[in-house]
């Protein structure tokens, strides 16, 4: 009898401990406060890290943690119709945090709100160059018709957050969503608190409440996790990432490169562009000015992206060969001695000044005449995006591009098509290939994107691709969480376990 009681008590104890262990509130310290908590702006990282998939959910979700690809979220399934439109079957029994029910009318309203001319939602930018209309079939079914037909429409809808149809068109500061958390406190300048919902449709996360704090200084963010004032800082500096038990580096979705302006001599000569690529010793930067773990880039998109081409190889570092190419161009009358200006953005990424100075020195070593100019973010945009200034000299614009969306279409048109706002050249062959890749599906789509990547790197030599960057996070030992490529833009609380 006594033994049974003890055994019973032990069993009860272990059941209780497993029920109570592994859940609780956490504190997250971010570098920048959200200026808005507007769902249609959630593709901006300072907003998305707080509300994306925590408060506001999307129909579909791209799996950046594993390799499941596009996963269902508020849509249970979707299929393309014979006319090219997409039909989405919505999850039933879902409620918004204000108690109203989720249905197809909310989806239509959310999409129309993004496209409205009464506001400027950031997610609208993913729908440029197409006309899309949403038609409610019934409460749980909605059709999206796109002109031209959009093979990646389900992926695009992973960027549209769903709000109740009662939401005003103007920007809001108190988001209502279907996610596992609701906003319970926002004291501007101090904190944002999300509290777990009991009526969430999905699995209950281990995190019961998340308090977001904001500190601009990376050393302070790291110190806060060290002292227990916070449990997670998704971005700290490399210098502070000194504790292997809590600090993780992860390949983020940023790619650093020099955009070449092909319109101006001598950069209009492919030999000169090739020489630029061969004169830079990229390997020498790894573990020195660029953190170990960064990957040498052969594409403007990071490795897990569809169509990323493993056959494209980094230009070998060969200063002598670069010099020879320059000499050949010079012999043909190309003005290779013209000063070329590298335009870089102040504080764009860690060690940007030293990295650019080193690149300047390496290029000069190979015979280039390189000037270096640092500008603030607003001025940088004027150099980076069209319309380019008339009468400008030859320029290389150092920039960092982010694509964690899994598909090159979010990058390729902007960076390489003739009409792309940051494209430094115009090539009909590239335009045609981008157009065909954008319209293709499945394996054909991956194959065509691979071809685009090879074409712009090997033949066109469109730019000087440098590094796929890494970020550093500090995670308290009480949490079970590993940052991923998505951490730059979102931070799903449901992915955080508590030990």
């Amino acid at each position, binding site marked *: 009898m006594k033994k049974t009681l003890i055994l019973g008590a032990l069993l009860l104890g272990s059941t209780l401990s497993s029920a109570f262990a592994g859940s609780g509130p956490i504190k997250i310290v971010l570098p920048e406060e959200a*200026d*808005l908590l*507007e769902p249609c702006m959630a593709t*901006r990282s300072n907003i998305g890290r707080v509300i994306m998939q925590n408060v506001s959910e999307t129909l579909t979700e791209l799996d950046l943690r594993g390799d499941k690809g596009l996963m269902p979220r508020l849509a249970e399934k979707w299929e393309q119709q014979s006319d090219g439109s997409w039909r989405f079957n919505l999850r039933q029994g879902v409620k918004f945090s204000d108690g109203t029910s989720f249905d197809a009318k909310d989806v239509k309203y959310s999409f129309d709100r993004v496209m409205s*001319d*009464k*506001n*400027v939602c*950031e997610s*609208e*930018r993913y729908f*440029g160059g197409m006309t899309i209309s949403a038609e409610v079939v019934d409460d749980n079914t909605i059709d999206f018709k796109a002109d031209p037909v959009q093979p990646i429409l389900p992926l695009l809808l992973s960027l549209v957050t769903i709000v109740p149809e009662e939401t005003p068109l*103007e*920007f*809001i*500061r108190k988001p209502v969503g279907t996610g596992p958390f609701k906003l319970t406190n926002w004291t*501007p*300048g*101090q904190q944002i608190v999300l509290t777990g919902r009991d009526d969430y449709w999905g699995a209950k996360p281990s995190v019961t409440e998340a308090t977001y*704090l*904001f*500190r*601009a*200084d990376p*050393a*302070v963010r790291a*110190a*806060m996790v*060290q*002292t227990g*004032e916070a449990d997670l800082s998704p971005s700290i500096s490399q210098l502070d990432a000194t504790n292997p038990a809590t600090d993780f580096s992860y390949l983020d979705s940023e790619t650093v490169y020099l955009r070449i302006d092909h319109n101006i001599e001598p950069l209009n000569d492919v030999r000169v562009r090739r020489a630029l690529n061969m004169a830079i010793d990229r390997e020498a930067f790894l573990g020195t000015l660029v953190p170990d773990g960064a990957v040498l880039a052969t594409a403007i998109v990071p490795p897990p992206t569809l169509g990323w081409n493993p056959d494209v190889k980094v230009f070998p570092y060969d200063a002598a060969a670069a010099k020879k190419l320059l000499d050949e161009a010079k012999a043909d009358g190309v003005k290779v001695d013209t000063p070329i200006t590298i335009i870089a953005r102040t504080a764009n990424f860690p060690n940007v000044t030293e990295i650019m100075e080193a690149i300047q020195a390496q290029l000069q070593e190979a015979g280039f005449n390189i000037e270096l100019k640092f500008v*603030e*973010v*607003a001025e940088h*945009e*004027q150099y*980076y*995006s069209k319309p380019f200034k008339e009468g400008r000299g030859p320029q290389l614009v150092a920039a960092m591009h982010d694509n964690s969306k899994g598909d090159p279409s*979010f990058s390729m048109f*902007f960076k390489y098509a003739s009409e792309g*706002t*940051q494209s430094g050249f115009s090539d009909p062959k590239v335009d045609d290939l981008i157009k065909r890749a954008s319209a293709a599906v499945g394996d054909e789509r991956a194959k065509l994107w691979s071809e685009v990547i090879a074409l712009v790197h090997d033949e066109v030599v469109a730019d000087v691709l440098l590094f796929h960057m890494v970020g550093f996070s500090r995670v308290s030992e009480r949490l079970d969480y590993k940052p991923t490529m998505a951490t730059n833009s979102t931070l799903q609380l449901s992915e955080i376990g508590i030990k």
Partner: protein
Amino acid sequence: MLSFIRKRAIASLISLVGLIVMVFFLSRLTGDPAALFLPVEASAEMKEQFREIHGLNDPLMVQFGRYVGDILTGDLGQSLRKARPALDVVLEAFVWTLWLAVITMTLVTVAAIVVGSLAAFRSGGFFDRFSSMVSLIGASVPDFWLAIVAIVVFSIQLAWLPTSGTGSIHHWILPISVLFVRPFGIIVQVVRGSMISALSSAYVKTARAKGVKSGPIIFIHALRNAMLPVITVIGDQAASLLNGAVIIETIFGFPGVGKLMIDSILQRDFNVVLAAILVTAVAIFLMNLLIDLTYALLDPRIRH
């Protein structure tokens, strides 16, 4: 006295109007807010839509007229980035800055006067040399370095105080201590210099000859006369705190007006920039008025 206040108010109002006009047009020279609000990949149509919604496509004079009209009704406009009234955003932050400035300057003033006066009384002695060394270090040490060192020592190593943030009285200790150091260093030097000259004056010698004790000589006879230059410096230091302590706010995550102002300039959130400048300018005007009144209180020659 009332006419003095009225004259100062009118002069300050004129400066304020000039300031608003200047900042309005200068801020517009920095460029297009749409370029910073939207990502580089945003289409030209989206940028155009942003400008249209916020009235940035109108001629500059029309925008200015609208701004002046709104200001007369007490409306300083909406923040472009925060979708809420710019004045609310600024006042919320300014309250933190004001508390920080008031507490710090009160502590600095008391401490600097005591230390500076005692140093002057035994000029050349150990206390004088020691306090001179401490105040010179205080006036020269970079506050970002001091802030980080204070966090490492008091928050990480000793675990006595929180690293940053707000919420309890403990959160105020490190920011105020770091902010304290520089004005303290400067004001101690001024008090000391001013007191040395006051203590060597004829009326102090007379008081000594009459047998007045050291305490009353320092803190009643000499200090009152030595205070005029000290108050001027206190005013300067307080004004710089009212403008916001950007570095302290950044490191300690203090939601004050300094960082808000810098961020708004960098983001081209014009209405917040203007509201922040307006609020801090009014605060500095009121503080200068207070200083003028203190002069008059301390020195009958000014009063009359």
